[in-house]
């Protein structure tokens, strides 16, 4: 039944592959054939489509073959998970148009495009975010970063002067962290910045879609290059949050194709020891934070002791408070606190 169409159909996938621009290698190799299965001549059900594409992903070595076909097809049926689609609908025939959509999207996945980019959205805590390459896709660990910040901000709702709580996010990507905090804390005001214009645009778009644009200001800035501008803009911040690029440069080459080919490397590469951006954030933190304001960082599991030592040696006014582990048990989060300087003004 599937074999009636010509092979030329299978070349359609190349148009989908070269999407990611400068960050991916695909734009240089448009000749490559992704060999999607031909569109079925007759009608098929969603269940059958799931099976065809699961097997095809397996054949082509695409990771998470079953999950990939499930998420893509569920999305096209208007659902977030395949489990939430009525059994009845799964056994109904798909329309011709719907079948073509399935084929188009699944073919993109053949090029190892992450599912989140294929369906152009994903969920982060209780939000649904629009996603586009090469803007960094939020990871599950970062959901826990938000929980850590929330725990603290909810416990101390603000100074006696009822000054509004503010947070500053460095490297906001799609806006996941800031928007999640804003959603959970109706009184919060958020500032977010990213060195990528794509990320700034996407964060603003997500803020609008979620109705949070009034409390989020997004800046196109680089925490390393635009220090002066930043110092002029941000002060008395309650919480400085960041999921900065923290991978070690030497580990970049071993990343899976989903990441290497489609996500912004600048959002991942933290330099030789993965700490380039982190050091910059820590150095500037005391100037941005209010007294007893805190820094919350997501880091590589090797970083916490390095961060602690570097801060003790180099950042006056910032005290390493604690390390937190992620749900997999890996050291993942560093929390630091601005402490008032105890220097006696008569000395020196």
């Amino acid at each position, binding site marked *: 039944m599937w074999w009636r169409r010509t092979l030329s159909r299978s070349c359609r996938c190349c148009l989908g592959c070269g999407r990611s621009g400068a960050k991916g290698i695909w734009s240089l190799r448009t000749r490559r054939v992704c060999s999607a299965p031909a569109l079925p001549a007759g009608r098929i059900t969603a269940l059958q489509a799931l099976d065809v594409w699961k097997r095809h992903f397996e054949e082509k070595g695409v990771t*998470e073959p079953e*999950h*990939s076909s499930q*998420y893509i097809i569920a999305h096209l049926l208007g659902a*977030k*998970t395949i*489990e*939430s689609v009525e059994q009845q609908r799964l056994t109904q025939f798909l329309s011709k148009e719907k079948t073509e959509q399935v084929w188009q999207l699944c073919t993109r996945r053949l090029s190892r495009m*992450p*599912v*989140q980019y294929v369906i152009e959205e*994903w*969920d*982060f*805590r*209780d939000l649904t975010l629009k996603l586009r390459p090469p803007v*960094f*896709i939020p*990871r*599950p*660990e970062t*959901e*826990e970063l938000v*929980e850590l910040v929330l725990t603290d901000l909810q416990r101390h709702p603000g100074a006696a002067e009822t000054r509004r709580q503010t947070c500053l996010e460095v490297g906001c990507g799609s806006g996941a962290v800031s928007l999640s905090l804003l959603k959970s804390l109706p009184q919060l005001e958020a500032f977010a910045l990213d060195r990528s214009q794509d990320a700034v645009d996407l964060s603003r778009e997500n803020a609008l879609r979620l109705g949070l644009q009034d409390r989020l200001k997004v800046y196109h800035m680089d925490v390393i290059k635009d220090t002066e501008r930043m110092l002029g803009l941000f002060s008395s911040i309650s919480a400085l949050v960041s*999921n900065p*690029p*923290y*991978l070690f440069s030497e*580990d970049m080459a071993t*990343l*899976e194709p*989903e*990441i290497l080919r489609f*996500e912004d490397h600048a*959002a*991942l590469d933290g330099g030789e020891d993965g700490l380039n951006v982190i050091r910059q954030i820590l150095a500037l933190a005391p100037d941005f934070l209010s007294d007893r304001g805190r820094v919350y960082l*997501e880091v*590589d*599991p090797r970083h916490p002791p390095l961060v602690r030592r570097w801060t003790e040696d180099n950042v006056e006014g910032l005290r390493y408070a604690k390390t937190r582990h*992620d*749900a*997999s048990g*890996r050291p*993942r989060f560093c929390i630091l606190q601005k402490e008032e300087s105890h220097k006696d003004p008569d000395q020196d």
Partner: protein
Amino acid sequence: MSSLLPLTSRLLGVSRRLMWRAAPGVSPLLRLTPAAPSWVAAVGKKDLPGLPVLLEDELEEQFVRGSGPGGQATNKTSNCVVLKHIPTGIVVKCHQTRSVDVNRKRAREIMREKLDVAYKGELSELLVKKKESMLKKQEKRKRVNENLEKKRLFKKALAADTKPEDDTV
């Protein structure tokens, strides 16, 4: 199911002790011995028990993040959470949403409900047994009273036989 049996016998054992210790009229659930399972919440006198409290120390959690460093280095879409309650062996799987965080929270909610059923299941059994025991006692007391009444009437009848009949009763 087999994992519930040790729980059953433990709860029954505990509650039997409770029933005899508690003051009459007070629900045995109000007083918990140290041997009671740690996740059993204190309950109100007439209210149904609240959902059990979960202690993170008693839970084992698993989900797919790979054997590597995780975090930025990995992008996976599978987010099934598997939660195990160590003391009872009850396992909950949740992949209802696309967010790992939400799935973890829901898995815990489901776990509390399952523990509650396991606990209530034992509780209903205990209540049934308690009721049976009370009914038996009532029956016995009723029979005893009936016998006493019969004897009393019999004696009265005997006494009446030996006396001349009166018009007044």
